[in-house]
């Protein structure tokens, strides 16, 4: 477990420690330490690229909606709805209010499922001092079961509209392939009502965790909407005053590749930025429904916050929001005359942006007059968060204390990375921390 000196004296030391389980993605962390300073830090997202941007070329817009879901098994709905929205905007096809409302419900289902999973299976074990969710079954069974119930509710919400939770089959350009029957919806409304108090308990449960003191400056970026907590529509806004339409976003971005990662880095004004639950809550908490705001205002944790460890609370707040929004929108459900409006392809550039569970997802498709895709660009949330996560790791580990043992450093680094809920589209396995330590000239530190 603990690192050992490969050689004595001044020689650099290479230590390998298994790092991150409980993240969705294949990566590693390399750390060069010199005395009390990190001289190099690389978050390695080593997932082999599947080259989706080329794979999609030649497919019709209807098939693209189903294909992009396959980018991510944890947020397929986000990809489907963003793609559908992009094509609708280009084709001048305005989905009716019923479609817009039900898509928000569907999206709530995905937030609920994704966030409940992250809170309980990935993040909570760190705060509770157990190895993993299975370890929670001993002392925290009721909380685990509550979490799994909320997760199942999210799964079933997605199923209601798409038949299955992963790569659901319900969404099409123009609306949905079919509308759920009123009876099914009524049963779901009952379950959602019963889940509201559970979601409120969940929020208070997470806010009572003990959080490391780790405030850092960073720029939040999220969709903003004047009338609602933005999920499926809005302008792209930042805490630094950025306020652009989704069509203007690309001009602000700089994308680059680094040798240690297969996910491209993106920067805004040549600086890293944050997307995801904390970014959204920081920018949009005023738009939360009053019933959610009331709960938020009584928490011991602050909003807005600049401590990424509070992301578990932000996810819980969004779980509550998702349950309440789905309940509100389904309460007076009526079957529509038609679940979709017709879409007639035209050539041009289709742009879509929505808030995936892990943050802003932005897509651009160029299509020909038959709606066949000729060129694609995909900017997923984890790619955007990569730079911010590296910056955070550096600051957080230095504050934590580099004199600590490798095992402690690894544990802390894992927690920092988990705060971002990285989804390197594919779940992974070998996350390693490699620490190379060079004794600082004046350091007495034993470095283990």
């Amino acid at each position: 477990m603990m690192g050992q000196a490969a050689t004595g004296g001044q020689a650099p030391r290479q230590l390998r420690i298994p790092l991150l389980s409980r993240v969705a993605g294949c990566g590693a962390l390399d750390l060069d330490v010199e005395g009390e300073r990190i001289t190099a830090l690389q978050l390695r997202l080593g997932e082999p690229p599947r080259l989706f941007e080329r794979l999609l070329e030649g497919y019709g817009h209807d098939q693209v909606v189903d294909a992009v879901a396959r980018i991510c098994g944890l947020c397929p709905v986000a990809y489907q709805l963003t793609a559908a929205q992009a094509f609708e905007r280009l084709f001048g096809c305005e989905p009716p209010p019923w479609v817009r409302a039900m898509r928000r419900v569907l999206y709530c289902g995905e937030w609920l499922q994704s966030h409940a999973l992250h809170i309980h299976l990935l993040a909570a074990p760190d705060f509770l001092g157990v190895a993993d969710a299975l370890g929670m079954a001993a002392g925290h069974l009721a909380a685990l079961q509550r979490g799994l119930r909320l997760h199942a509710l999210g799964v079933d919400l997605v199923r209601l509209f798409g038949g299955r939770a992963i790569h659901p089959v319900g969404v099409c350009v123009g609306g949905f392939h079919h509308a759920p029957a009123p009876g099914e919806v009524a049963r779901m409304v009952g379950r959602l009502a019963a889940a509201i108090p559970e979601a409120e308990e969940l929020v208070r449960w997470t806010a009572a965790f003990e959080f490391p003191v780790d405030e850092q400056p960073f720029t939040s970026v999220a969709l903003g909407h004047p009338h609602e907590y933005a999920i499926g529509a809005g302008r792209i806004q930042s805490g630094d005053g950025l306020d652009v339409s989704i069509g203007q976003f690309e001009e602000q971005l700089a994308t680059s590749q680094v040798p240690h990662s297969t996910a491209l880095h993106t920067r805004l004004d040549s600086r890293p930025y944050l997307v995801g639950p904390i970014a959204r809550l920081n920018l949009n908490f005023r738009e939360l429904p009053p019933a959610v705001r009331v709960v938020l205002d009584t928490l011991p944790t602050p909003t807005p916050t600049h401590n990424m460890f509070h992301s578990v609370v932000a996810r819980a707040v969004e779980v509550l929001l998702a349950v309440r929004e789905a309940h509100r929108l389904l309460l007076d459900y009526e079957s529509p005359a038609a679940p979709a409006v017709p879409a007639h392809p035209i050539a041009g550039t289709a742009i879509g942006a929505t808030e995936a569970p892990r943050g802003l997802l932005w897509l651009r498709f160029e299509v020909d007059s038959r709606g066949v895709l000729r060129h694609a660009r995909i900017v997923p949330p984890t790619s955007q968060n990569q730079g911010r996560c590296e910056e955070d790791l550096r600051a957080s580990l230095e504050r934590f204390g580099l004199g600590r043992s490798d095992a402690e450093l690894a544990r802390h680094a894992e927690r920092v990375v988990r705060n971002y809920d990285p989804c390197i589209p594919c779940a992974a396995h070998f996350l390693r921390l490699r620490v190379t330590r060079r004794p600082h000239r004046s350091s007495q530190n034993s470095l283990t």
Partner: protein
Amino acid sequence: MNRNRLRLGVYALSGCGGCQAVLLDGEGLLLELAGRFDIVHFAAIGPCAPDERVDLALVEGSVSTPAHVERLSRIRAASACLVAIGACAVSGGLQSLRGLARDGSRWPLDLYPHPEWLDLLDRPVPLARYVKVDAVLHGCPIDRRALIRVLCDRLAGVAPRPERRPVCMECKQLGVPCLLVARGEPCLGPVTRAGCGALCPRGGRGCYACFGPADLVNVAGLGARLASLGLGQEEVARRFRFVAGDVDAFRTAGAVGPAAHGPETP
């Protein structure tokens, strides 16, 4: 106390992570699983022991890098029974279509400023290209009920019984009106392996073959039927070459256009 319990490992190569998420995709499934198996490796949720011996290995994802080849052979060596779960593991998945593209080898160059930093195989391939696979679960993603069946079969010590029928049979059993016949909707149900419960036809849309080809199907016949609905040759080909990936039965579908004798009546 756990000496007699079967040891389970869940591993992922290249894919979207959705098939292993199916293991978490229900209120009780994970706890039930933990009650019946020793979960030795399932890094996405915690247990991390990639080289430990297991009785049952569930492997998702396609083999896409030289490192995958090596990892897969280690998983094979350490597992008594290896099950390929999902389209990527069974047939390469959507990403394996790169192998069919004339310029597929150029794609990394087109998308990455420094393709030399990537280490990819020529094309993503299914697990069986490199190791013996004891059982397969089709689908993109796999179906939860089929997964549970395979786990139960293993617990009971019996061999899983593969599904061979097409989706058409599920529609007939469920009484779903035929979309192809009644609405002229392009539907791949006649050639697609059953197992989803006719999810798409029940939801009012044509099947898009995410479970891959069924056994003994007439792909050329269906291709001709789709062409008779007004789909162009290229479009027919794209319907077949989709999420199941680069599979033999679908590879040439549509490539030769409508059959010379014209469309068949359904």
